[in-house]
């Protein structure tokens, strides 16, 4: 019978003893539960340390394992066991749901585990009683059986409390709400529900494998927070390691810094040693340590001249993928260098070129601890990240340099979305893929893009309601309730979660938004940073957002347009309450309870790069933690609204015909491919026509594309 004890790995500085315990636990029968290594952090005398291991089981309650590894471990066993007991109890007691009145429910025992066969020299029988070796483990555990965690509710609450390594909230906003049921009160309640790591996320924080780890997650699945928690955990457990967290969007730097500080403080009540843990941009610019990037460091380490953005632009000309080119060029030079990092964590990997991941790989010690996290749909350039064998290449013999062999530990998917409710996420996916888009003339489908691997739908948390999830087949998908927690929909009880509204003109749209925001602030107990206004227009967003900002100014409401800044700019003004108005690029990675998307009519259709445009809409909608209002003007907006209404009619299920191989090729070429140089011309022309108030019909557009393509051949 296979063991019913789930193992979650962690760093406790005793790898051999841990392995022995894991092996022994796997042989134990009749006991189920979860054994977590290297967690949680407890107060032991004056120090804060992580437990070697702790078993949480409905059969035996809570059992702390004290691993006997070095000779000193065999001294003062009883004293240490007492301290561990008190330490863990101290960690768990603040959780009110683990007590009945004043009675603390979980029963805690401590076992000192001697991995070495009968080599312990304790003549003291008392001590020997609470020391167990491989042979005696199973029987001792059975002797410890008790009912304290037999209730599923208490068991899960205890497990959650243990996995909440530091017992802290990651969202530390304190709200002043007086009206129950107000929007502000609802957001407060939602935030409380998601303040602990779940059972998918918790293992990611403590479990570190040698080799590359890939984390794929839905937008809003907590990837960034998990990465920060992981980096902080490894930093406190391995203070001698050099760790780097890198990312694409500069604004993430502030966010990651704050998160790492908070987690390190939570785990060990100390501050990070920034000499050992670096939060740095992927590219970086020359201007001093503030702007140093991983690419820059690599160039310096390999004795090459790094190129900055301006230099790359002049070297490679217009339209090139600059970062990809500079990384590729840097990798050409085969020069030996000392590895700089013990671990590198890459966030937003979907926005970084594969060549950058190769650079990161080069900068690591031989254990090659590289963690890269990404979101399949968030990339605004329409490109998805290839598989590891394509990213990292092959040896001269043909074997892949990186393969994620240890599947559950090296290849992880976070499919629970904690930001968007089921209706919001399904709407975003439906519109992003064009599931219910009316097929244009002469086209077999309205789809704009589709996953190459059908199975990915299930991995991101959809279930098959009808049909078959395979190329060439009809299928109906809907959100798996496991992956889209229902509590997120509570916000929709009093106020609709999603609304698509068509206005007569921009003026009417802007006036409405300003009035709604005024109401949100003055009557509905929302704070300024609960509200974002997004303009998905990629070329003109300040001009689109300006009028709303102006109206708010006239109403005495503070707002600002999120800008690009040379210093890390705060997206939300924490010290100075202000409504953030933003273009799509700066919106990425941020979230708010109330999201207004203006000028959405521009997202329905486009002459070129429709997949990217639809991805923009996807990203905008998925910024919302609760409510989203999609607003626009004119016929295009009517059509977009109609597309949304089809989603509603299908009860937020996605019913479509999965394209076959050839059709997928076709879709890619038509809507995603950016290799076509005629594109820039087409886009420029479209813009000029737009300012004159003209619009290309579908037929004219196709014809124009054809002519341009012919010209460029």
């Amino acid at each position, binding site marked *: 019978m296979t063991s019913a004890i789930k193992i979650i790995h962690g760093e406790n500085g005793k790898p051999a003893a841990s392995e022995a315990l894991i092996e022994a636990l796997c042989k134990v029968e009749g006991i189920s539960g979860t054994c977590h290594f290297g967690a949680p952090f407890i107060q032991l005398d004056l120090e804060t340390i992580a437990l070697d291991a702790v078993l949480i089981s409905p059969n035996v309650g809570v059992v702390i394992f004290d691993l006997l590894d070095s000779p000193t471990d065999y001294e003062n066993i009883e004293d240490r066991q007492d301290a561990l007991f008190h330490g863990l109890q101290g960690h768990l007691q603040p959780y009110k749901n683990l007590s009945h009145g004043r009675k603390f429910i979980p029963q805690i025992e401590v076992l000192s585990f001697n991995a070495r066969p009968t080599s312990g020299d304790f003549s003291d029988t008392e001590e020997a009683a609470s020391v167990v070796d491989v042979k005696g483990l199973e029987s001792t555990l059975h002797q410890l059986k008790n009912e304290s965690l037999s209730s599923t509710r208490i068991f899960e609450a205890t497990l959650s409390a243990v996995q909440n390594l530091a017992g802290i909230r990651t969202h530390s906003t304190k709200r002043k709400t007086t009206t129950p049921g107000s929007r502000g009160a609802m957001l407060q309640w939602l935030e409380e529900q998601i303040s602990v790591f779940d059972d998918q996320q918790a293992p990611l924080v403590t479990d570190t494998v040698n080799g590359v780890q890939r984390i794929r997650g839905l937008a809003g699945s907590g990837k960034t927070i998990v990465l920060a928690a992981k980096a902080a955990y490894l930093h406190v457990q391995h203070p001698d390691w050099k760790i780097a967290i890198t990312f694409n969007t500069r604004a993430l730097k502030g966010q990651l810094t704050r998160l790492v500080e908070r987690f390190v403080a939570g785990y060990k009540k100390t501050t990070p040693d920034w000499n050992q843990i670096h939060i740095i941009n992927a590219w970086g610019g020359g201007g001093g340590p503030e702007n140093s990037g991983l690419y820059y460091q690599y160039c310096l380490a390999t004795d090459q001249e790094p190129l900055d953005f301006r230099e790359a632009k002049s070297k490679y000309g217009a339209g090139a993928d600059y970062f990809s080119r500079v990384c590729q060029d840097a990798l050409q030079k085969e020069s030996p260098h000392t590895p700089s990092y013990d671990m590198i964590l890459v966030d937003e990997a979907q926005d970084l070129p594969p060549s950058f991941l190769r650079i990161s790989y080069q900068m690591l010690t031989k254990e090659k601890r590289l963690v890269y996290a990404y979101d399949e749909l968030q990339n605004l350039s329409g490109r998805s990240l290839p598989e590891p064998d394509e990213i990292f290449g092959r040896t001269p013999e043909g074997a892949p340099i990186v393969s994620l062999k240890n599947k559950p530990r090296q290849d992880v998917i976070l499919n629970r979305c904690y930001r968007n409710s089921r209706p919001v996420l399904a709407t975003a996916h439906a519109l992003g893929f064009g599931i219910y888009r009316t097929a244009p003339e002469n086209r077999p489908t309205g789809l704009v893009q589709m996953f190459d691997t059908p199975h990915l739908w299930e991995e991101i948390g959809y279930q098959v309601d009808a049909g078959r999830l395979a190329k060439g087949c009809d299928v109906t998908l809907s959100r798996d309730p496991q992956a889209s927690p229902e509590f997120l929909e509570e916000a929709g009880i009093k106020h609709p979660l999603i609304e698509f509204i068509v206005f007569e003109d921009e003026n009417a749209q802007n006036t409405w938004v300003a009035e709604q925001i005024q109401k949100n602030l003055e009557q509905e107990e929302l704070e300024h940073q609960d509200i974002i206004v997004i303009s998905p227009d990629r070329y*003109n967003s300040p001009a689109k957002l300006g009028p709303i900002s102006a109206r708010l100014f006239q109403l005495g409401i503070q707002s600002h347009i999120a800008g690009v800044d040379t210093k890390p700019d705060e997206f939300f003004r924490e010290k100075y309450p202000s409504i953030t108005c933003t273009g799509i690029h700066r919106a990425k990675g941020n979230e708010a309870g109330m999201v207004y998307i203006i000028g959405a009519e521009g997202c329905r259709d486009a002459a070129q790069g429709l997949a990217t445009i639809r991805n923009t809409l996807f990203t905008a909608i998925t910024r919302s933690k609760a409510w989203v209002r999609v607003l626009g003007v004119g016929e295009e907006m009517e059509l977009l609204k109609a597309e949304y209404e089809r989603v509603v009619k299908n009860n937020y299920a996605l019913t479509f015909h999965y394209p076959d191989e050839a059709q997928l090729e076709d879709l890619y070429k038509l809507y995603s491919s950016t290799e076509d140089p005629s594109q820039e011309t087409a886009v420029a022309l479209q813009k000029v026509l737009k300012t004159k108030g003209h619009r290309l019909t579908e037929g004219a557009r196709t014809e124009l594309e054809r002519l341009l393509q012919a010209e460029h051949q």
Partner: protein
Amino acid sequence: MSRITPKKIRDEADAVILPFIEKGLIRDQHVHSIQPRPNKVVDVGFPAGQNYSKIFGKKPYDKLYDELRVNRLFSAEFIDGGLIQMSYRFQDKALLAHRLAYYPNPNLDAFSNDPESFYQDELFRDIIERRLTAFPLRFDFDDRNAKDIVHPHSHLTLGNLQHCRIPVSSALSPRAFMEFVVRYFYDTPEHNFTALLPRHKHRFETTITAAEKELIHMVIAVPV
């Protein structure tokens, strides 16, 4: 033109910012406030906070600029990071002093060197491409401390140079100051931002002396 009151100045300060917020040229701003002080003094300006004057010391311009920006010590921030400060002080309903400053972003170079700006909007890119060499400028009006030629009632200081006091014909209204900045620092052949300004409403009386007029000076021309 009727008497210029603190309230009128406050309203105009807001009114000259508004069209640029609408256009997206200004990305952050404060509503101006009226603060009564002892001795019948009334201040009009942006919220400054207690440490405002301490920020100005001997420090390099880019440090000063950063502190002003991060602490939001401005009336408005342009999309390229340029900061506008407008403050007026009245006593007994007469203008005692004003301080109208423009702090351009010294880091503009870094914008064009920023990959993220690649995605940025056209307006932004047009402004950034202009290659301004940043230096601060300030129009001061000081009735109390005026000294012929050495310290004109109304003067322009360039680059924070203490003894650079170019005589100016009179005090400036927010409207006049805003036009100066927008016309000469933001307008391009393609973009006529100045045209968005509301019309002039206020003209301050001439304070430049005969001797000062003999020097090279600035004339505030307000259409009648």
